[in-house]
């Protein structure tokens, strides 16, 4: 059947084109980030750019191989591939090379190989394989347990290395599960709790309470559709803040902004609930319940963090959050990264002309912080274009996924999009201070053979499956 298809027509060249754009631009930036006076040739494999070029070529060869083997291979061997990758994760714990206090690499011949990069692809395959099975309903205990195993097993093994960043990537599969029928409130709640958790640890308590209160107010306005009432409630909240400022002076706690804010919130809660009861306004109690639940959550996070965690655990969380990433001082990496990107301005300093990245001010500049080079040398134009290309690729993948007749390919497609999205959004966010520095690569950009090869395979398995969508009837 395949023979009757014209492969060149069936390959989605849009995806291939976007991929090539990213790879070429990515490699140019790897070159820029390690470029120095000793530059001899781009083929010098002792340098990052030479090595990366080699891996790009290896990846392209693998793409050809993908098209040469039978398309049913991936469906058929999904469990085997997953099992093999779990074995590799076990192997890395035993035979792995320890770098920066974590055992993520295996040395094979002269190449360092990072199994966790490939496990993401294997997990996407196995989830697609399981959920596309006959009579499988996602929202059952059995399916959810299977999902728990398929995601939990690699996460557990990766945490043992430990590599928290890569482990966190697996949370992206929640998007796949949502698409395949998981109730929406789970996604909404987990997104919200994540955001709240980050806010609690990264922002000031005062800011968090203010943001939550604003959300509650907006929620009230949206649910009840009463702008006037919302406005009045808002005014009452603000007025009570000023009342609380004077009251706070009389009470036996320090009259700082945070305490005053909580006091004013408490007072206005009583007043607003009273008004709600009197005027029979709906949903007010519900909204207050949520507001206090979330504020309680931030208290819990703070309490756990400050009182229950031991100092070394606290440091570990801080490192995870990018608060303590460098012995030189807190937030050094992030600050240097922001300086590099910020100094690029609108048009950038020009290719190979960046001073921050060229002079090693940015740590991990050819791997996790490769985006700094883009920001510095290509400016806002460059970073915006990269984000547009990525977004285009992600939307294209969703489009490919949705046009399948095979459930397996569709679910796998969503897996690919979710993984790429997580990497893309989190990597860029962490270089500009919107997400803790968790150290995951930017796909097709960051220097690293394993990740280049793994992300290429991840994407091209989809392209391969998509190319036979017309014949693929399972």
């Amino acid at each position, binding site marked *: 059947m395949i023979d009757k298809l014209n492969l060149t027509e069936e390959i989605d060249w849009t995806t291939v084109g976007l991929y090539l754009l990213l790879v070429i631009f990515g490699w140019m930036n790897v070159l820029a980030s390690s470029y120095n*006076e000793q530059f001899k040739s781009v083929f010098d494999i002792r340098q990052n750019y030479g090595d990366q070029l080699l891996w790009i070529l290896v990846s392209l060869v693998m793409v050809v191989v993908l098209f040469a083997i039978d398309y049913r291979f991936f469906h058929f061997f999904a469990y085997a591939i997953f099992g093999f990758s779990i074995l590799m994760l076990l192997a890395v714990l035993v035979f792995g090379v320890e770098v920066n206090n974590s055992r993520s690499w295996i040395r094979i011949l002269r190449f360092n190989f990072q199994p966790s990069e490939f496990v993401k692809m294997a997990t996407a395959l196995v989830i697609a394989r399981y959920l596309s099975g006959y009579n499988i309903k996602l929202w059952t205990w059995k399916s959810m347990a299977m999902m728990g195993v398929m995601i939990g097993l690699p996460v557990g093994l990766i945490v043992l290395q430990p590599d928290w960043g890569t482990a966190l990537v697996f949370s992206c599969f929640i*998007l796949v599960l*949502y*698409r395949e029928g998981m109730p*929406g409130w789970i996604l909404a709640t987990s997104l919200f709790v994540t955001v709240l958790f980050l806010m609690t640890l990264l922002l000031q308590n005062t800011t968090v309470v203010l943001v939550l209160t604003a959300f509650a107010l907006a929620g009230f306005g949206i649910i009840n559709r009463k702008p006037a009432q919302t406005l009045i409630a808002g005014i009452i909240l603000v007025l009570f803040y000023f009342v609380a400022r004077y009251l706070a002076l009389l009470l036996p706690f320090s009259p700082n902004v945070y305490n005053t804010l909580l006091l004013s919130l408490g007072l206005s809660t009583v007043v607003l609930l009273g008004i709600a009861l009197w005027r029979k306004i709906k949903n007010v109690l519900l909204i207050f319940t949520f507001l206090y639940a979330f504020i309680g959550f931030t208290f819990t996070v703070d309490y756990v963090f400050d009182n229950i965690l031991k100092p070394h655990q606290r440091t570990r969380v801080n490192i995870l959050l990018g608060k303590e990433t460098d012995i030189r001082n807190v937030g050094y990496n992030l600050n*240097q990264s*922001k*300086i*590099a*990107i*910020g*100094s*690029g*301005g*609108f048009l950038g300093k020009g290719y190979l002309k960046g*001073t*921050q990245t060229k*002079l*090693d*001010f940015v740590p991990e500049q050819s791997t996790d912080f490769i985006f700094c080079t883009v*920001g*510095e040398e290509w*400016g*806002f134009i460059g*970073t*915006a274009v990269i*984000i*547009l290309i*990525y*977004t285009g690729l*992600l*939307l294209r993948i*969703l489009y490919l996924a*949705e046009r399948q007749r095979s459930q397996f390919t569709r679910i796998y497609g*969503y897996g690919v*999009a979710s993984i790429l*999205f997580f990497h893309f*959004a989190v990597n*860029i*966010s962490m270089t*500009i201070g*919107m997400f803790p520095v968790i150290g995951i690569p930017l796909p097709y950009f960051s220097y690293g053979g394993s990740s280049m090869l793994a992300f290429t395979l991840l994407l091209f398995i989809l392209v391969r499956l998509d190319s036979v969508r017309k014949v693929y009837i399972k």
Partner: protein
Amino acid sequence: MDQFATRRNILVSIFLLAAVSLILRLFYLQVVDTSYKLSAENNSKRTEILYPARGLIYDRNNNLLVYNQPSYDLMIAPYELKPFDSAEFCSIIGVDIYRLRAGIIRSFNPRYRREPFIKQLSPETYANLQEKQYKFPGFYVRSRTLRRYSKEFAAHLFGYVGEVDDKMIAADNYYTLGDYIGISGIEGYYEDELRGEKGQEVLLVDVHGRVKGPYQGGRFNRDAVVGKNLVCTIDKDLQEYGETLMKNYKGSIVAIEPATGEILALISAPSYNPSLLIGRQRTANYAKLETDLLEPLFNRALMANYPPGSTFKPVQALIGLQEGVITSASSFSCNQGFYFRGQSVGCHVHSSPLDLVHGIENSCNAYFCNVYKRIIENPKYGNAELAYNIWYKYVMSFGFGQRLNSDFTNELKGFIAPSTYYDKYFGSNHWNALTTISLAIGQGELLITPLQMANMTTAIANRGYYIIPHVVKKIEGVDTLENRFYKKHVIDIDTANFNLVIRGMELAVNGGAGRTAWIAQLKDIIVCGKTGTAQNPHGKDHSVFIAFAPKDNPKIAISVYVEHGEWGASYAAPMASLMIEKYLTDSISPGRKGIEARMLNGNLLYSK
């Protein structure tokens, strides 16, 4: 739309939302917020300051007086340090291990990275270190210059160079922490000329502070411009001789070339060795000098307020002559003093009565009391206050009671009482010539600095004008000095009157029996002088002498104060004459060696 299409749309929205927030955040970071650009500049470039050598200072005969010596600051480049033999290092540098450790730890703090670990290594230490420097990577030496003196003298003249403090930095943005600045004397006044211009080398550095090459191809590099050399008006030999004469005395000698106002020598004794105030020991030495009871840091030549005593009499005579209250023939009798309505001013024994010329020769107090009385009681003005104001105007025109505006920063004004002073003290119209009679003989409310005295002598020598005394003759690369150092300050008194007074001063040195300053007499050179004894309520009187020579076409005018030297003729006059002789003949004649020896062997340092 089925449920799954909605879910797809929600996922699409999440992707788009993420993209939009990333782009917005990047727009803020890269386009709106400019602070990161500045941080990036500081991050990647390091400006090394190139310090220029200060200008050299020559004397009027082009003898080099002040020049520069290299000084070596030991620096630490923390990220280039490698393990080294700290015991050996400490013994070479002469620090203990604790200091070394503290220095290394401190160097890791970016705020202190460019501060020296040890300032101003001695050349010997530097030489030792240089031999073994290969053993101590991460330590390097930054060279700057310090002052050096070909002859350790004239400390007050040269002033000194110190490090800038916060106030100086705030006042002039040329300076940054660690810069040197001239603080007093020539170094202070001519700071702008002497300092040159700092250069800079802007280097590209990496995160460890390692130099990667010039920043933007060296576009911002500037060479340091060496300071301008100065030729000062000082005569090295005369200055040195004067300091030798004064080494056991407190007081001051100021010598000026009358025709030009150029200061030939400016001596304030006791002085100090200018080398004490350079380099690392400066602060410690300064503290020592500051607490020395002999006040070596006090520049008496510019700042000491002495009563002029009888040396003021020529001015009195000039005013009297010009106002017409006396003539050359006016004579007054003296019965060992001036006695009038209960006021008395004593005088020594001399023949009487005397005319003007001999009044000056004999320094007769009674004579000048009468002159002063006539000036203040001049019927032309009707009352004492108006007449006093006229007198005051003449006195001020000699440069008294005000800063002469020379090229010193620390000149003091002295004091001449204006009539309002007496109005306040006695009440308006309740004072007259007799209540202020001390002024007649240079006492009372009359304080004059040695520089002003020398300047007055210049004005007499010039028969009626002076040029503001100054200490710099030529600035390298500049054609002329400031205008004020050429301008004649003309005194409104006729030349004939000056000639009369000068005749009196000539006789005071070279006259007959009554001359007061015979000791200042020189062979073949007519010295005109006037002794003075400045009454000192705190102890022995001060010995004062003013003189100029030769009488015609004078080459040098001089004022000498010797504290506690009592009579003008006992110390000040011989010293002045020795100075004049030295300057005009280059040597001291054998006949006067005895006087010289007496001066050199005397000692009034601890006299009170």
